[in-house]
């Protein structure tokens, strides 16, 4: 029965792993890593991120204007709009960071990622997270491990920033809510810039090593 159990577990593992395996997606990832279009890809990503920031900022500024005009329902609606933009963007960033972690396995060597300094953030939770990340950077040995941990920290940071924005929306005083929201939004932006930097490091690391060597070292 032991052998039967082993075979059964292995069957589940193989079916799940290979059932979800997408060769085209894997090939695209390799193409991204080895295709030599790093700078072009980064520019596209920066433009997409900037668009998200502009949408969220515009909605927030319109909400601020609505508060000044004493139009509370409109301010709440616009604040919700700003939140929804960043909520959707957070999902996108977390998916990308997951892909970055996976693709990091494909790189032969990793350039060091810049640390997340607590001083760059305003929200307490994210400052704490950044502090923990700094400590981890000292404990971990390889650049790859640091990179992966940094990607995890950023993904968690996005969740915390979004939660701070969600909580800020619930405040009774709309002006305070808007200010708190803005603080969390700025933290979100800092995290977003760090996330773009992670992608840049990944692509630069892949491009820096000779392509055949990058593949051969895996």
């Amino acid at each position, binding site marked *: 029965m032991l052998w039967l159990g082993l075979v059964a577990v*292995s069957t589940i593992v193989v079916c799940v*792993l290979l059932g979800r395996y997408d060769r085209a997606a894997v*090939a*695209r990832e390799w193409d991204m890593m080895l*295709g030599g279009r790093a700078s072009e890809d980064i520019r596209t990503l920066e433009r997409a991120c900037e668009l998200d920031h502009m949408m969220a900022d515009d909605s927030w500024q319109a909400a601020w204007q609505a508060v000044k005009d004493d139009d509370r329902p409109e301010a709440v609606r616009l604040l919700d709009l700003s939140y929804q933009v960043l909520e959707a963007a957070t999902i996108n960033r977390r998916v990308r960071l997951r892909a970055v972690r996976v693709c990091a396995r494909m790189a032969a060597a990793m350039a060091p990622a810049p640390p997340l300094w607590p001083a760059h953030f305003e929200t307490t939770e994210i400052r704490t997270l950044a502090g923990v990340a700094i400590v981890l950077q000292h404990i971990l040995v390889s650049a790859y491990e640091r990179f992966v941990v940094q990607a995890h920290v950023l993904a968690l940071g996005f969740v915390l920033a979004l939660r701070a924005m969600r909580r800020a929306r619930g405040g009774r005083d709309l002006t305070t809510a808007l200010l708190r929201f803005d603080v969390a939004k700025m933290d979100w932006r800092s995290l977003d810039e760090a996330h773009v930097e992670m992608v840049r490091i990944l692509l630069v690391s892949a491009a820096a090593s000779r392509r055949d060597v990058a593949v*051969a070292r895996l």
Partner: protein
Amino acid sequence: MDPRLLIGHAVKVVLVAALVGLYARGRSGRGLAIVAYLWAALLGNSLTTLWPDLFFNYEFWMRRQAVFDVLKLLVGVEIALRAFRIFPGARATWERLVAASVVVATTSAFWFLPREAPYGVLFAHQPQIIAATVWLFTVTSLVIVHYRIPVAPWHRAILLAFVPYQLVFTTSIAVMKNLGASLHPAMGLLDSTAYLVMVAYWAQTAWRREEPLAISPATRRTLQLEGA
């Protein structure tokens, strides 16, 4: 007609379809061990279904199974070697050593198996051999997914179909071993049906056209995806 015989003939037809598909689509060179396995399966199937008086017996089945066991391990090793051919780091040393030792152990078992081996000897060893084969396939799958190795659809199909079939086969043997040989016809039917499904899936994959990958020629060359 005995349903088992009917399935046996169906398996023969599908095996021929799979082999013709592999040669017609130029995929026979992508897995020599699996081609050898399919030829061995076709030969074994033809002998037992066309001349059952001579070949439909435990001794022949046992010898045939031993050949299959060796070929299955070779299939696993070959897929791993082909998948990781340009990724030597992903192909850990222990994996190669253990895979080689399993092949050696199975081959030795095949050569030193007593000629007049009783029915029980095979049943005693079969689950371990299957577990080793499935373990090899599982490790290969894990490394492929973890390191994002681009693997050919044909190789994926082999792994994806072989492992579930091995589970059915092991279960059949375990049931017969524990509940008695009276269940042999039912378990034989179950095993044959599962085998038919597996070979049909292979035949379908062997004939299916591969969708071109939307990647640059440079990446294609680097990853050696031409005819991989």
